[in-house]
Structure formats: structure tokens, C-alpha cells
């Protein structure tokens, strides 16, 4: 059996491990368009900040590929997939054949779409090379503008602030973190960032990038000119799915997958930021482009490629981040605009603590935690397992809320115990 994995990050590596766990003989090939063994992509901001060295970014131990007999092809892009011949075509024209294929090509940063975007000094902040290029510019750069107030842009800004640069976040919407927070918590986090020296301006967008070959400044849509030497674009990512556009593999937001993470072509699977899966809360098809989701999808796709037949329950939006020691966790559906939802909030702006829970009927669908994040996973379990929380509504916001208060509700749920070892079962035995 020839397994071919396109992509060498969370999804790809987890798939490889899952396949090897079940099939020690099959040939596994991993192709990456980057020039590194798998690294912790989310830690490129730590690398940029100087809190992690390059050697500490390795996702797996040094001999991972050798020990698992994996052929690793670096620096090669897959141009197209030809499922009818079970082949892929590489950028150098070479073809590789497969029996089982995993497409885990991830995503690419979206562009600003303005004049002058081809200048040197503009980064999407997605790869280790992006971080290395930014580091090269730091000695002569003073000012960084981050366009977009999402997690990636803020993480890059946070890293560069730690490097002593003058960082300014420019957001088109009225607030930062608009995808994962509500107004009050975004205001709190924004105030915290500003107190720690990061500037934030809202309601503005770039119109033109200024400079010759290198970035020297920006013209904003209010005709204001700002000087800067580095620009980070944090406008989100789009799935890298050009390689299937002329094939029979179906796409929508991303590459469409079924509950086994299979595409519409039987022996082709997809996982990670390129894969469209079902959202656990809304039931709608979506891409939850998150490390956690990518790793789980890769693992399950890998198991299925090796013949397991394991169902993927669906993806869930869940983000955790820490800026200057302030932890922020956002789970599920938190940007309530329509009717039919109930919200409970506890605000303690003076000590930077915020807790919000969102209910729909008897189900918990969203949580925002700022400051105190203990027991966050208990909420996620309640969301994930669609637990009827009508009996515990009044204690969900309490600081003493924890697993012991909901153990019976959770343990009734099908599949919950499967993830738990016997150590857990026996706690409740007596």
C-alpha cells in the first residue's frame, strides 16, 4: 500500500503516526513545499519574539521520519491531483502514484488587495520563513503596522512588541478579535494590549502601500499617511486547494469531506485548514482552521486510510491565547446577533476578568473566558457533547464550577467514557 501525504504540519504528521500505528509495512511519502521537517507552526510568534529557538520548534524528535520509515520530500509543491490515475503532479513535472492520498495542504494568508502590496516587508505570518525574514528587517525597522485584529495578526504584533518595536494594530471593524470575542471582552483585551504598549486603531483600512522596493509607509483610507518598515497582514487564511481545481474532487469553502474525512473520491482524504467539515454547533459545513482540529482530523483520516473506519464527530471553534500574561479562551458560538439565545455575563474589568456563557435552549453553545480560564475544558465538553444543562444553568458562571458538578451529565453521554481511562471510571464506582 502506498500512502501519500501532501502537507507536513499538524494534520500530515498526525496522519503519518496513525497510519504507522496500524500498518508497519506500507510505504508512506510526505511532501512539503517548505524546507523544514515538521515544526510547530503556532510557535513562529515565540520564535519571532525570541522566546523559542529554531531547534525547539521541531514538532517531532529528530529521527521521526527515519524511525517511521517515511520518505520526506521537501521544497516541492504538488500542482495537481489526478484521482483517475491515482497520481499527483509535482511542480518539477514529476508524478507520484498513490493508493491512499491525504490532502493536508493547509491555508495561505489572504492579501489586502491594495496597490503596492508586492513590496518587500509585507508578511502574511504563516511560515517559519516569514518569521526569519521579519527578523532580518528588525535591526533597521522601528515601526510595524498590523492590518487585521485577528489572532494571527495580534500574535505577530505581540511578538514584535517583545522585540522592542513600535507596534500598531489597524482594524477595519470597530474592535479587535471580532471573530472570537464579543464587544465587552474585546474592549478588555484591547485595553490590556494598549496598557502593555501596543497601539490599536479601529475603523481604518489601508489604501496604498508606499515605498520603492521596500515598504516605507502606508496611505490609509482616511488619506492619512503613516510610516512603517514592516507590515503584517492578519486578514485570515484561505485554503490551499488549487491542486484539485481541475479534478473531480469536490470543493466548496474547502475540500468537502464526509464523516470519515474522505473526499468524494474514495481513496482521497483531506484534513486540516484545507478541509471542510461539519461544525459541531451549527451543523453547517465550515472550515475551523485550528491546530487542534487539524491534528485530530489528521489522526482520524490516517486511521481510516489504514482501514479503521473511525468517524470524525465534527469540528468546533475553540481558541486559546495569552498576551502579556492575560489568558483568553473562546469556545463555540459567541458572537450572538440573532434572537433565540440566552447570555449570562460576569464582568470584572478592574482585574481583567470576564466570563460569558451563551445558551441556546438547554444547550451550552459558547463561552468566553478572560483572566481566569480554569476548567475551560469542562465547558468545551458540555458544548461538544450537547449536554442538557437546564439543571445547572445557575452555577455555570461561578468560579467554583468544575467537572465534579457535571460528571453525571457528561458520563451519561455516548462516547464520553471511551476517551477516559479506567482511572476515571473508578472514581465514581463507590
Amino acid at each position, binding site marked *: 500500500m502506498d500512502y501519500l501525504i501532501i502537507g507536513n504540519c499538524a494534520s500530515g504528521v498526525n496522519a503519518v503516526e496513525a497510519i504507522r500505528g496500524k500498518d508497519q509495512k506500507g510505504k508512506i511519502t510526505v511532501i512539503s513545499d517548505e524546507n523544514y521537517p515538521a515544526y510547530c507552526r503556532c510557535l513562529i510568534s515565540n520564535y519571532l519574539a525570541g522566546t523559542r529557538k529554531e531547534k525547539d520548534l521541531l514538532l517531532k524528535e529528530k529521527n521521526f521520519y527515519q524511525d517511521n520509515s517515511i520518505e520526506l520530500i521537501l521544497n516541492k509543491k504538488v500542482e495537481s491531483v489526478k484521482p483517475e490515475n491515482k497520481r499527483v503532479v509535482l511542480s518539477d513535472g514529476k508524478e507520484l502514484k498513490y493508493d491512499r492520498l491525504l490532502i493536508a495542504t493547509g491555508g495561505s494568508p489572504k492579501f489586502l488587495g491594495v496597490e503596492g502590496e508586492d513590496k518587500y516587508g509585507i508578511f502574511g505570518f504563516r511560515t517559519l520563513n516569514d518569521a526569519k525574514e521579519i527578523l532580518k528587517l528588525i535591526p533597521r525597522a522601528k515601526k510595524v503596522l498590523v492590518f487585521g485584529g485577528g489572532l494571527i495578526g495580534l500574535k505577530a504584533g505581540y511578538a514584535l512588541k517583545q522585540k522592542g518595536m513600535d507596534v500598531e494594530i489597524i482594524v477595519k471593524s470597530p474592535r479587535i478579535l471580532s471573530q472570537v470575542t464579543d464587544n465587552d471582552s474585546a474592549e478588555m483585551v484591547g485595553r490590556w494590549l494598549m496598557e502593555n504598549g501596543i497601539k490599536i486603531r479601529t475603523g481604518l483600512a489601508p489604501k496604498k502601500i508606499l515605498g520603492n522596493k521596500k515598504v516605507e509607509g502606508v496611505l490609509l483610507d482616511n488619506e492619512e499617511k503613516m510610516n512603517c518598515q514592516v507590515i503584517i497582514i492578519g486578514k485570515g487564511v484561505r485554503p490551499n486547494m488549487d491542486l484539485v481545481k481541475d479534478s473531480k474532487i469536490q470543493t466548496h469553502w474547502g475540500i468537502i469531506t464526509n464523516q470519515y474525512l474522505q473526499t468524494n473520491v474514495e481513496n482521497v482524504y483531506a484534513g486540516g485548514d484545507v478541509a471542510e467539515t461539519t461544525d459541531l454547533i451549527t451543523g453547517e459545513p465550515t472550515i475551523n482552521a485550528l491546530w487542534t482540529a487539524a491534528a485530530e482530523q489528521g489522526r482520524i483520516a490516517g486511521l481510516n486510510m489504514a482501514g479503521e473506519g473511525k468517524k470524525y464527530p465534527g469540528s468546533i471553534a475553540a481558541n486559546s491565547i495569552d498576551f502579556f500574561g492575560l489568558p483568553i479562551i473562546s469556545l463555540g458560538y459567541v458572537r450572538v446577533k440573532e434572537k433565540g439565545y440566552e447570555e449570562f455575563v460576569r464582568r470584572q474589568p478592574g482585574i481583567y476578568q470576564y466570563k460569558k456563557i451563551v445558551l441556546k435552549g438547554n444547550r451550552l453553545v459558547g463561552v468566553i473566558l478572560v483572566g481566569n480560564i480554569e*476548567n475551560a475544558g469542562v465547558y468545551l*465538553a458540555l458544548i461538544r457533547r450537547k449536554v442538557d444543562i437546564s439543571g445547572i444553568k445557575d452555577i455555570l458562571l461561578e468560579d467554583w464550577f468544575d467537572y465534579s458538578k457535571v460528571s453525571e451529565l457528561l458520563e451519561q453521554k455516548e462516547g464520553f467514557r471511551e476517551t477516559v481511562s479506567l482511572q476515571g471510571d473508578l472514581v465514581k464506582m463507590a
Partner: protein
Amino acid sequence: MKRLFVDVERCLSCRSCEIACAVEHSQSKDLFSSLKEEPGPRSRTKVERDTKLQTFPLQCRHCEEPYCIDACISGAVSKDPETGLVILDEDKCVGCWMCVMVCPFGVIRPAKEKKIALRCDLCQDNEIPACVAACPTKALFFGELKDFKKKLLERKDTKSKVKV
């Protein structure tokens, strides 16, 4: 595989296990010296009360399919293939709190002062975990499942309540 089991009938919620855990994971491993350490000692196990006010000790369950491994963005969490224990490499941990976000038991605790997640490692260097050694009522048991079951059945008072 040796695991930590709790005979909740015997637990008095004295929290000796919490103190023992915090001391064991301190730099000095001594109660009084550890109190002066910076950052201070922190327990990785906790004793809570459920909605019926029944005592409820909680610690990492070393899950079969741990959410925390998928969630870890720095490759710091792994499952030991021999012991089945889910172990955090604290040097690799960056304090992103992804594991805190996904642990359904809420037993991974964010140590903001150290910027790492704290979790039970079953005191791997010791013969028995510190919490088990410290438990005055022998509510905590470290060993094989079958031995724990046997121990429970030997106790007449719980025989009727235990489903083995």
C-alpha cells in the same frame, strides 16, 4: 498498568493529597522550605464537591484518547507507549493553555506565574505517588485495576455498592 484509583467512600476531603502534591513538585520537596519558594508550590490534584456535596478528588486521568495531545501546539504532550501515561514535557510547554481549553475534566491547571500547564505525572520518579503516600484514610490507591477491585470487595461495607 499501574493507575491511581480513588475509593471515594473513604475520602474525607482533608486535602492532604493536595499539599503532598504541591510539595513533591516544588524545588525543595520540603513543606516549609517550599513555602518560601518563588513561584510558590502548586498542587496538580484537587478535591472538589459534587452537587450532592459528595467529595470528589480530581486529577489527570491519562485518557485513552487524550484531547490534550491533539491540542498541544508545541508537541509537549505525549502518551508513553509503555505506561500509557500522558506526560507533559515542561521544557517544551509555552503556556498557550490549549490543553486547559480541551481537558474535559478541568484537571490541567494554568500556572500563569511559570507560564506552563500543570498536570499529574503520577510522580514517575517515586515508587508511589506523593498523594497516595500522604492519604491518611487510604482512599487513594496506586496499582493495577484488578487489585483495586479486590481491595474494594474485601471491604464488607462497600460490597453492596460496588459494581465490579
